[in-house]
């Protein structure tokens, strides 16, 4: 009789199911995982240290690059922290625009999560459908900020610019006929708001399509039900937040419990799971997409009815408009000082957290009164989730490990920072 000995296996960092640069050292007993030791830091760029060397506004762009699939939600926590230390109040319209884009960001994050999670488990088509919808949100990002991914749209004091009146259109292409081009531009005839409105009408049907493919799918359920179960007590112990915590049945959402911006004025529900397994977390995120869609359409209704400023009228913090600079010397000086030296933030410390698509994304900011942060700590939700991978995967098999990595919705930009 021969004994099967436990052996060590390396997983990643170039594995397609490793979601970027995750390296796992697995201790296996046959097919069964005995221990998981994640090696992270392959994407460590020392964002926090870089931010200490730059004026406050120059680090907004770094925030996009943390969790690079939910860009604007990262910016939000950073500008909130600065605004709290400065003690400034931003225009209401800017708050609505921020909430609008936070929720669009949540949808785009969950679309990418759904596509890659399903692909990891073997459902190829969901990935293609999810990316079709995601493309529209990228176009919204581009219309409002000029960049499809790294928007740098939120600024301390508001947002960079108001929503454009005209949606950019597809130009002629040798690969497409005139009719196809017209069809692609059909929902782009009006403003950005019209385009988003069209999207919100379409999305619930599309989410139904994803659900048709997965929710009652026998293979999908075999791969996710009862996999990676976390009890509510353990979820709290392990520092879980966001859908990971709600999937275990803890009703905790910062948008409701510690509301920021205009969330108290909006109607939405918080989906909560029961079993704490991969399937419940899937259901929670699917429902979150529907709820985000509701919030988006409420924001659109408000934005149409209430025009107004979108950034603070304080040249010490927000740059003056170009037209004013043409005839006002003070405005020109402020512009120059703002883009060379920046603004100083009063000494103090704050912790600003937002309900990021992945969980609680927090910024702990310490200022000594200078024009650069003294210390910036980024609390990334995925870091705490990945730390629990060992506990969640023990006793499961390697294919289940892939399902657990997928359900954690990890992105290395924010984990390694």
């Amino acid at each position, binding site marked *: 009789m021969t004994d099967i000995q436990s052996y060590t296996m390396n997983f990643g960092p170039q594995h397609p199911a490793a979601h970027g640069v995750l390296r796992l050292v697995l201790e296996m007993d046959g097919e069964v995982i005995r221990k998981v030791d994640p090696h*992270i*830091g392959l994407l*460590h760029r*020392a964002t*926090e*240290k*870089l931010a200490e*060397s*730059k*004026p406050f506004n120059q680090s907004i762009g770094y925030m996009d690059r943390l969790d690079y699939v939910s860009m604007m939600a990262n910016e939000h926590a950073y500008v909130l922290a600065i*605004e*709290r230390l400065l*003690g*400034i*109040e*931003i225009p209401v319209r800017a708050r609505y625009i921020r909430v609008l884009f936070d929720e669009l960001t949540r949808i785009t994050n969950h679309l990418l999560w759904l596509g890659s999670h399903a692909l990891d488990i073997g459902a190829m088509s969901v990935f293609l459908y999810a990316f079709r919808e995601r493309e529209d949100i990228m176009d919204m990002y581009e219309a409002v900020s000029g960049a499809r991914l790294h928007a740098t749209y939120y600024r301390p004091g508001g947002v960079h610019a108001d929503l454009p009146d005209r949606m950019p259109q597809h130009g002629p292409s040798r690969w497409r006929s005139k009719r196809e081009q017209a069809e692609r531009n059909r929902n782009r005839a009006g403003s950005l708001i019209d385009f988003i409105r069209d999207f919100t009408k379409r999305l619930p049907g599309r989410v139904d399509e994803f659900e048709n493919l997965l929710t009652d799918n026998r293979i999908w359920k075999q791969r996710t039900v009862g996999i990676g179960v976390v009890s509510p007590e*353990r979820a*709290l*112990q*392990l*520092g879980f937040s966001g859908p990971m915590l709600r999937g275990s049945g*803890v009703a*905790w959402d910062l948008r409701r*419990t510690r509301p*920021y911006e205009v969330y108290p004025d909006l109607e939405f529900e918080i989906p909560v799971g029961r079993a704490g397994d991969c399937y419940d977390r899937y259901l929670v995120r699917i429902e979150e997409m529907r709820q985000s869609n509701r919030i988006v359409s409420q924001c659109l209704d408000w934005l149409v009815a209430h025009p107004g400023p979108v950034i603070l009228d304080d040249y*010490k913090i927000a740059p003056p408009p170009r037209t004013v600079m043409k005839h006002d010397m*003070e405005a020109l*000086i402020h512009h120059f*000082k703002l883009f*060379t*030296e*920046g603004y*100083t933030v*009063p*000494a*103090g*410390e*704050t*912790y600003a*957290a937002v309900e990021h698509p992945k969980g*609680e994304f*927090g910024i*702990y900011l*310490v200022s*000594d*009164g*200078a*024009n*650069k942060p*003294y*210390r910036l*700590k980024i*609390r990334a939700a995925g*870091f*705490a989730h*990945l*730390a*629990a991978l060992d*506990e969640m995967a023990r006793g499961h098999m390697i294919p289940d490990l892939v399902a657990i990595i997928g359900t954690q919705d990890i992105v290395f930009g924010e984990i390694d*920072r």
Partner: protein
Amino acid sequence: MDMTDGFADEGRELCDAIQACWPEAHVSRSALGETTWSLAPDTLLSVARILQADSRFSFEQLMDVTAVDYLAYGKEDWVTEMATATGFSRARGEGHQDPAVRPRLDGRFEVVYHLLSVSRNERLRLKVFLPPEGPPLVPSLTGIWASADWFEREVFDLFGILFDGHPDLRRILTDYGFIGHPFRKDFPLSGEVEVRYDPESGRVVYEPVSITPRTLVPRVIRNDARYPSTGPGKKEPSHD
């Protein structure tokens, strides 16, 4: 911002509860409604245990552990005068560090814990200032909150602070075989070594960095007229 309005009473009850339980406690509430408790390293473990388990506090979650290196606090590259509501003053000369602005004159590192109570919807920040003498050592909270594991490893990696009782205190974010603690203020931004592929030896080699550190935007602390009460900004504008 309505967050500051909504925080008028935030944390008051918590402060009172802490004062009732620990009359000696050094608890403060900021204008933003954030509750901060500074305590000594030797009391941390017993306090944390009660904060987690006692139903008066029930902080079920440890959301974050981090550290702050106060070595360069209040240090500027240029000395400037003031900023008023309408204009700025010029820079007057080489910068310096005013020793009086540092929150504590002794010691350098502070470990910061962010706690969250889901059942009571409350947050608390614990700050542990490390004494100047002896190794930078604090008790590990892994026995109380499981999430402390990686957070403490990260602080150890980036700041070199040791956590007594941590089961597996290894580096986590930096490279295999990395030397130094990069988030300390005396660690250069460009790092100490750079890597490249060496075709002669046929492998990746480590060399001292070839980048010269330079300051793109000088660090300045202005006595901004809009914030009359702020700490280091309080320095008197002199007219020499």
